[in-house]
């Protein structure tokens, strides 16, 4: 799997890595049961600290997209694709709301209304 990160970007490195995995899951390039690259190998390829990669993987686990297992590595969960697309849509919604200057409460209220 291909990764690109830019240390000069305002987004922290671990968020950039997590976003790329999430994007790959949302686009079905990574499916249930697929394994993410071992953290040490990815850290070496991108010349970042291994804990940066582990933090990204930890975030993805907290989002319910992957399982982290001691022996088998980091595995994409069942039905992660739909979940990843919802998370990506939420991020896009938040970004758009910030751009047009909508208040946080307003967006939350809006979401509650449409659900």
């Amino acid at each position, binding site marked *: *799997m*291909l*990764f*690109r*990160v*830019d*240390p*000069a970007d305002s987004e922290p490195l671990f968020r950039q890595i997590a976003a790329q995995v999430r994007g790959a899951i949302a686009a079905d390039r990574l499916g249930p049961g697929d394994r993410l*690259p*071992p953290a040490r*190998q*990815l850290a*070496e*390829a*991108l*010349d*970042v600290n291994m804990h940066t990669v582990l933090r990204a993987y930890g975030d993805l686990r907290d989002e319910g997209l992957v399982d982290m297992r001691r022996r088998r590595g980091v595995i994409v969960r069942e039905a992660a694709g739909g979940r990843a697309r919802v998370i990506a849509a939420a991020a896009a919604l938040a970004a758009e709301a910030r751009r047009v200057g909508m208040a946080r409460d307003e967006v939350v209220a809006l979401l509650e209304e449409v659900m």
Partner: protein
Amino acid sequence: MDRTRRTVQDVGVCLLLPAAIAVVATLPWLVAWSDLPDPVATHWGLTGDPNGHASPAVALALLVVPAVAAAVVLAAVAIHTRRDRGKGPVPAGPALAGVLAAGLGALFAVLSLAVVVANAGATSWHEAELPLAWALASVAAMIAAGWAAAVALGPIRLGAPAAPDAPGGPGEQGGAGLVLRPGERAGWVGAGHARWPLMTAAVLAVATVVAAVVTAFWVAAACALAGLAMLLVGEVHVTAGVHGVRVSSPVGWPRVTLPLDQIEAARAIVLRPVDWGGWGYRGSLRLAGRAAWVVRRGEALELRLTDSRTFAVTVDGAADAAAVVNALLARARQPS
């Protein structure tokens, strides 16, 4: 002159050698059959005293069948490579098969002859003595026949035949599309898998457990070793990034590291194991300037290295890997 030499090679080694192997292995049994004890001695200690025996039919099958089979393989290789030998180097796959068949065929043929000579005229297998010289002769015959086959086959080609570069030059192939901003980093992590070695490894793992329970320890140990070897042959991990390209087995060893400053260009190719003489780590970067890590046929990442060396590894998504390597190379070359 060259034509004469060609004919000598074709007739002398590629056809006479398999014929000689078959005759040396078979004829002594036919001539001396009535003079052989039953059972015949089939195994000897270092002093030449017999310490193992079998019925003549079994001994004949165990020695003659492998020799004749090797002779048939050698003849098939000779016929199969006729066109290649006329024009240029022979692919590594058939070449390796030919050299192995010649060597093993000669080994079995001389051993077959030795067993008949030792047993002929003896009234019981206990009397059949075999001087150590016969063992040395069989090894010498193996080396001589293998060497003769290697000479007859001529130069051996490692890898696919050289093809003219596609339009745009080798540097562009597979690398188009990925351009990195200054300071941006790209990395690629992938693997290549072969199904049959992994399935064999699984079967051998079960066999290890079964053997450990019901038979001897050394059978279990052999199964475990074979399973481990299959695992090493069946999967390869590849990492490409700012450090260069690293290729390793699933357990991390053996591994090959090619720093970015040794790489000139990368591209995705279709690799055929027959061009490399089989699976595993083939060739040598230091000795031949060409090497490949082969776990299956198909998609592979090929790196053109400094000193006109090349390295290839069979890996899924090779085009992406090549793109990352070429993008990193392009940026490294830019004056900053």
